[in-house]
């Protein structure tokens, strides 16, 4: 039973354009959501997060949107850069439990 799903295994985007990565979840008890980025041969690195009391959080080129009614969140990267090419994991948690549940990841490739 996969509670966090990233339905697009890969995404290819031109440099300078917007990248939109999507994530869906099924557990309505999740109240905190995170995005991680992973380069080959490295561990996942925290990118940005959002609490369920918000619908948007922005940090530089990265913005996360949360639609609680649809149980959907997305990560927008604008403008995309070749260095953004990596695997992006969506993760969710019930803060009272403190455990992360991850999606399977989306491979983002940004072409020069």
């Amino acid at each position: 039973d996969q509670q966090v799903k990233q339905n697009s295994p890969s995404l290819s985007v031109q440099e300078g354009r917007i990248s939109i990565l999507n994530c869906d979840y099924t557990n309505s008890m999740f109240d905190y959501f995170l995005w991680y980025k992973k380069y080959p041969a490295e561990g996942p690195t925290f990118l940005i997060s959002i609490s369920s009391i918000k619908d948007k959080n922005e940090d530089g080129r990265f913005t996360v949107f949360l639609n609680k009614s649809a149980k959907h969140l997305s990560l927008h990267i604008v403008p995309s850069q070749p260095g953004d090419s990596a695997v992006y994991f969506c993760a969710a948690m019930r803060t009272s439990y403190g455990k992360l549940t991850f999606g399977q990841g989306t491979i983002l490739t940004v072409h020069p």
Partner: protein
Amino acid sequence: DAMVIQNPRYQVTQFGKPVTLSCSQTLNHNVMYWYQQKSSQAPKLLFHYYDKDFNNEADTPDNFQSRRPNTSFCFLDIRSPGLGDAAMYLCATSPIGGGYEQYFGPGTRLTVT
């Protein structure tokens, strides 16, 4: 720089031969986690330590055990590795009361022959 370190980065073991993976951290975080990640799958939590308190996930096989002798170190022991245990093993830490992010090490790639 404060960080999470995993050794070795690559480990090859034989079917049924016990193996230990190690994780150390200089972040002084109270909570340490072990995840298993198989190819193209989501990282899966095996267990975590909340200070010295060990918390096992319900579906973690008995073949997997862990030790945390002090705040800085945590070990993953696989008593009798099977071919299905070949995976990337990720260690992560987080502080208590310091936010919900977890900080990951680079992982150990385990191969079982």
